[in-house]
Each structure stands twice: as C-alpha cells, then as structure tokens.
C-alpha cells in the first residue's frame, strides 16, 4: 500500500498532502485528553502491523489494520495513521517523505469511510452476530477501498486505472480476509474488556 518516492507526479503528491492535512486537522479538532493514549496504542499497532508480511499471492503484502483504527478512532485515525506512516517512512523506508501525504490519505480515508459505514454495528445495543459481521466488513472494506485509492493515485499520474487498481486489489485479497478476522477479534476483545472504547466517543461532535 505504500507508494514509493518518484512514482507519482508532483500535482498528485501535493493534492494528497493537502487532503491528508485537512483530515488530520479534522482529527485533532476538539481532541480530548482521554483519547490520546488509545490513539497512541493504535498508532503503534498500525506501525508494527506493516511488518507482518503475508506470503500469499504474487506480490509481497502486509497487514494494514486501518479498518480497526477507523472503527475505534473515527476521524482521529487520520493523525494516528499519519504518525504511523511517517515512522514507517523514516525507519523502514516504506513509502517516503514526499509520498507521506498520499500514503496517509490512502490508508486513513478508508478508515473514516468504514467508521461511517459500519460504526453503528459496534454500539452496545447491537447483537453479537451483527457486531462480528460489521467488524469483519469494516476490516475487509478498509483494505479494499485503500487498494482502489492506490490504483486511483497511480491513474492520476498516468497509469491505466483498471489494471493498476485490479492488481492492487487482487494482491490484497488474502489480506482483506485476514484483516476482517483480526478486526472482528480485536473489537470482540475490546467489547469484553473496554466496551466504552467502541461507543463512538471519538467521532467529531
């Protein structure tokens, strides 16, 4: 999911950075002190997840966990993912500094979209099967939308959209299911231990 430096055109890089900056600003607005530790923990999880490599398919892909971040953090996923991608670029040379904005946007926007699509299923009133289904769908869709967005970023730079997006999505098919399962497992665990984390307190008021 990390686009390397020198692949995208400057216009795409700048546009991506601008939108990502807006998202981060939205995430940091009215930040409550109580939310900071969970943002840090999830940011660390996102940072480390990129090292868990799944040896399936033609390419080399890794976990992203943006669906989980979106469900728990909502808009706050933007700053959390920005910190994660920045450290990945600096320490692992995944992606790069110039592509930081685009990479953040490609992983954080799907997280927020999944929050709005599936966040309702995690409220305390919902049944267990609905809960598991929405969590799984969120983990799955976040990766899917990220793949499409990577394809779209490449398309804006001149590659044909359909082959590029197809390739990214196809390579991430196994990851989608693993992420779905992981997201469901993590949120189920949180529901037992810290149900208040899932109550959507992190959405912008």
């Amino acid at each position: 999911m990390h686009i390397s430096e020198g692949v995208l055109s400057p216009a795409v890089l700048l546009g991506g950075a601008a939108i990502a900056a807006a998202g981060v600003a939205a995430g940091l607005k009215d930040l409550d002190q109580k939310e900071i530790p969970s943002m840090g923990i999830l940011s660390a999880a996102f940072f480390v997840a990129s090292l868990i490599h799944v040896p399936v398919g033609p390419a080399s892909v890794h976990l992203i966990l943006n669906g989980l971040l979106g469900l728990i953090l909502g808009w706050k996923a933007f700053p959390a993912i920005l910190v994660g991608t920045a450290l990945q670029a600096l320490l692992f040379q995944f992606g790069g500094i110039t592509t930081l904005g685009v990479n953040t946007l490609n992983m954080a926007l799907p997280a927020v979209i999944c929050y709005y699509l599936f966040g309702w299923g995690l409220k305390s009133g919902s049944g267990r099967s609905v809960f598991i289904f929405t969590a799984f769908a969120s983990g799955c869709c976040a990766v899917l939308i990220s793949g499409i967005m990577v394809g779209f970023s490449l398309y804006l730079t001149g590659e044909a959209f359909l082959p590029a997006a197809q390739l990214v999505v196809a390579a991430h098919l196994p990851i989608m299911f693993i992420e779905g399962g992981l997201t469901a497992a993590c949120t189920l665990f949180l529901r037992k231990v810290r149900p208040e984390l899932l109550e959507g307190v992190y959405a912008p008021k």
Partner: protein
Amino acid sequence: MRRNDHSINRAAFYRSKIAYLVFAILWLVFSHAPAFAHKVTIFAWVDGDTIHTQSKFSGGKRVKGALVVVFDSEGNALLEGKTDENGMFSFKIPQKTELKVVLKASMGHMAEWKIPAEEITGSGSENNTLATIEKASNKTPTGSESIKTDEDVLKPATIGLGREEIEEIIDASLDKKLAPIYDMLANTYDQGPGLTEIMGGIGYIIGLVGVALYFSNRRRKE
C-alpha cells in the same frame, strides 16, 4: 465482599488476557523476522561485459516479471527488460558511462541503483593496479635466491602472453573469485527493518503521546 473478590479476579483475568495479546502480537512480528515486507530493492553488479541485477521485496521474496529500465547519466533510457523467476535481469553493458538501473514493480513500487563509471570502465583502473604490481615486484629486494629464480621463470611467460591477455585472465579469475561475494552482497543488501527500528518507532509513538498529554494537561490547567 464476595462481589469485590469477583471483580478483582475479573481484573486479573483481563490483565493476563491483555498480556497474552501483547505477547501474541510480538510473537507474530518476531517469528516472521526474515519475512519482513513492503518495499522493493534492486542490486546491480558488473561481471565482465554484463551487468546483473537482482530485485526483491524487502522480505527477501524475489520480484518476478517486473520492468527494469537502464538509464545513462543524462536520463535517457538505453534498454529495458523483465526480471525472471529469481528476480534476476542481466544485460550487456550498453555504454561505458555511469548507468542507473531503475526497477518498476507494480503497485507504485520503485527502486534504483547507480553503477558508477569506474566500475564499468574497469580496465583503466586495472591498468594502474597492474602497473603498481609490476613496479612493486621490481622494487622487491632481490636478496634471497629463490625470489630471483622465480622472477626469471615468470618473465618469459609474462612476455609471451602480452598485457591484454593477462588482463583478461585476471578479470576472469577475479570475477570467478568475487562471484560469491557479489551474491552475498546482493543477499545481505537491505535485510529489512530490525528490532532497533521497531523499538525506536514504538518509542517515538510513546514519546508523542507523552508530549500530547503534557500540552493538553497544561491547557486544561490554564
């Protein structure tokens, strides 16, 4: 009283569960240590009149069927080709200037490797080394008898072969001797992030959380 005991037990239970989860995640990460992923690298080396390139994902998995483009120092594309099953792509040296090999893997992955001109036009520098070797052998004190006879034996042989042939022989044997070292370099080049980077990153995040908490705390007091 009973209820209290129960809640304490519950807390201990969850605490152990959290610890278990943390260990599970750490195990997942470190048990996959040699399979770290997600960027591409290309490594190129000169072997006689060919240049070999090896492309891989940072997990060590070879990049198959990816496009490799060779540029000169002005940025003109000279030739291109696809990597094979082992992520290898070899080509004859198109011109003896600095070359840049760019790997364009799918999904927005790209990497490059520069081959300096000295490495390609190696004959010039090898002439020098040969000359210095000759000079050195002339300069060696000819005190002992055995060295003298050795030189006497060697001299007619070297004259008979001629300079270029000797160079070719040296080049060939050097390439043969260095091949495993190039292989080793290609394999060790970029092993992916290690424990230092991971712990460093997590430390940064903890530090950032601390800074954020500090400022939000101060703002609240004011």
